[in-house]
């Protein structure tokens, strides 16, 4: 997986380095060329001055007016040299000492500018030209050491490189900042997804950059559709329950009215089948209602949903004065969809209430270990019953209508959650203890004593 930030940073750095490198190259070459041109012009002026200082004496002797010679040409190896050739007679600047300059062949009126190696291997720019003065062929060559110029250009180039690197660094920093700023909405969207997973949000916020908006909108659309589907399916399940159970009630009451008195055995059988149909319908409908791990749905809130649930259970068992203890360890919500949580805790607490003598305890822990522990001080369940509970979620001695379904739906819910359920005896209260795990503990066979 590549990081957008790293990719943008790298591409910007590469393009900056390429651009600045090219600019530095062009700048170096251009500056060098301009300065060389200036030097050549100066050399041409000096050449003209020297030419003007030549006097021809009778007998072919040539003299150079010493006043025309600048001091720099007199100092040995000063880097400034000239050489004049009049029909083979050479006049050399004193700076050349015993050395000489190679005079290229240049036609009269032509100018030649070239790099040559001079005394002490000095790199020289050599300007030379040929003239005809008073009927005689005069060749003039003037040279200057390029070392100073080249060093100056190199210094300039290094300075430019230094500034450029600094600029690249600054630009990269600015870009980093801009990218971080521009990507913040994306980071927010990622945070939203986390909140979505934790059930704290039902949709992603849509104040994101245009480029990401279609993605966010699509996710929201999907979430909405999923929530609607869950809502519709739950509604349909409710209607179906209504449609099936009213005739089932009638059937049961008809049996009670018409058959019970005359044929008790047939009545018992009928009642058994009616109960079986009802349990099957209940179990299937309740399973179909489980939202499971659905994104965007609100979670069971222990601060809001638990008190009303406990209040409801209290009202349903008004004749039982149960002392209810709850221990909630740093947990606000259960990792369960709200209605799933209602169903899970509703059934577990209702079951505990039904069997408890006087005390029911609920412990919720967000850390390792079981998520929920529900204990009562009722008669508890023997080993055989625990096995049966673990297998089917049915309490072995319950034959009252509706009691069997409660714990079996709890099993389905926990399975949908991907967790485990464990039945045992409460060491503190003495009755049944039910532990619900989000992640199954190792080597759990579902039952513990």
């Amino acid at each position: 997986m590549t990081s957008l930030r790293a990719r943008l940073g790298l591409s910007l750095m590469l393009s900056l380095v390429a651009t600045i490198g090219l600019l530095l190259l062009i700048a170096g070459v251009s500056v060098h060329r301009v300065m060389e041109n200036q030097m050549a012009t100066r050399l041409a002026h000096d050449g003209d001055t020297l030419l003007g200082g030549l006097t021809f004496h009778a007998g072919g002797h040539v003299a150079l007016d010493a006043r025309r010679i600048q001091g720099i040409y007199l100092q040995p190896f000063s880097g400034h040299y000239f050489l004049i050739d009049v029909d083979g007679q050479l006049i050399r600047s004193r700076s050349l000492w015993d050395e000489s300059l190679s005079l290229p062949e240049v036609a009269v009126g032509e100018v030649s500018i070239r790099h040559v190696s001079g005394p002490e291997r000095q790199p020289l720019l050599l300007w030379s030209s040929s003239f005809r003065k008073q009927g005689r062929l005069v060749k003039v060559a003037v040279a200057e050491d390029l070392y100073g110029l080249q060093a100056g250009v190199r210094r300039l180039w290094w300075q430019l490189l230094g500034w450029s690197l600094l600029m690249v660094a600054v630009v990269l920093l600015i870009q980093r900042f801009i990218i971080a700023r521009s990507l913040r909405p994306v980071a927010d969207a990622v945070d939203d997804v986390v909140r979505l997973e934790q059930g704290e949000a039902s949709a992603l916020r849509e104040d994101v950059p245009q480029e990401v908006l279609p993605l966010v909108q699509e996710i929201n659309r999907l979430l909405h559709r999923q929530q609607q589907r869950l809502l519709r399916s739950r509604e349909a399940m409710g209607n179906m329950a209504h449609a099936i159970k009213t005739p089932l009630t009638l059937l049961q009451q008809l049996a009670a009215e018409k058959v019970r008195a005359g044929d008790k055995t047939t009545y018992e059988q009928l009642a058994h089948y009616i109960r079986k149909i009802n349990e099957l319908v209940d179990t299937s409908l309740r399973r179909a209602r489980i939202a499971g791990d659905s994104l965007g749905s609100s979670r069971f809130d222990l601060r809001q949903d638990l008190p009303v649930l406990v209040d409801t259970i209290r009202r349903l068992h008004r004749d039982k004065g149960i002392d209810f203890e709850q221990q909630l360890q740093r947990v606000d919500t259960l990792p369960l969809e709200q209605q799933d949580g209602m169903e899970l805790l509703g059934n577990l607490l209702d079951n505990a209430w039904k069997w408890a003598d006087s005390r029911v305890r609920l412990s919720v822990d967000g850390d390792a270990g079981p998520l929920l522990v529900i204990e009562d001080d009722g008669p508890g369940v023997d080993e055989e019953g625990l096995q049966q509970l673990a297998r089917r979620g049915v309490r072995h001695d319950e034959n009252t209508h509706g009691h069997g379904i409660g714990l079996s739906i709890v099993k389905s819910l926990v399975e949908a959650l991907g967790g485990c359920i464990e039945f045992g005896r409460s060491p503190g209260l003495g009755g049944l203890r039910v532990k619900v795990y989000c992640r199954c503990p190792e080597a759990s066979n579902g039952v513990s004593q």
Partner: protein
Amino acid sequence: MRLLLAEDDQELGTRLKRFLDRQGFAVDLFDNGVDASFYGSETPYDVIVLDLGLPRRSGLDVLDDWRRGGIKTPVLILTARDTWQEKVQGLQKGADDYLTKPFHEEELLARLLALIRRNTQTVGEHLSANGWVLDEETQSVSNAGQSWSLTGIEFRLLRYFMLHPGHILSKSRLTEHVYEQDADKDSNVIEVYVNRLRQKLGNDVITTRRGQGYVFGDGH
């Protein structure tokens, strides 16, 4: 005991009405939420059986109407919807009990009687007042080892008296709680039944307060 029964399934409604009538309730049956909401607010019912899946106005909304309107009559929700979410909603809206279909008529009756007793703050398995014990199953009353069986109206009337011992009950109030909506309500008939009860159980069982009504037991 006036009982409002809101149930949209005609067959189940009729059957329940017949059953509850036999148990000494004066039952008014409504098959939709709008009528149930209106009559429940207008008539002093003693107990209400409410289905949630009512046409025109849902049972939860009807319950909300009543509770917002200050109607405190105990309500038992009788429904096929049996998720905890729905139970929580129903009870938080102000229902007093919740029974899911399919159910046994006996269970419904037991829950209704428990609701009524809770509401009138009477305790014990059988309704008793001033030494009189009413057996709802056999519709008879006993005192000091002697037992008298009662007719339907006598039973209804005596039960209402025994649920409100020491209270002055006017003829019209007794009529309202003993007869259903469509019955021919003649308050003079109450006088006849009070006299029948006096003949059976003794003159001092019910005393007359001139211009006010009747009192079961000693009014002081």
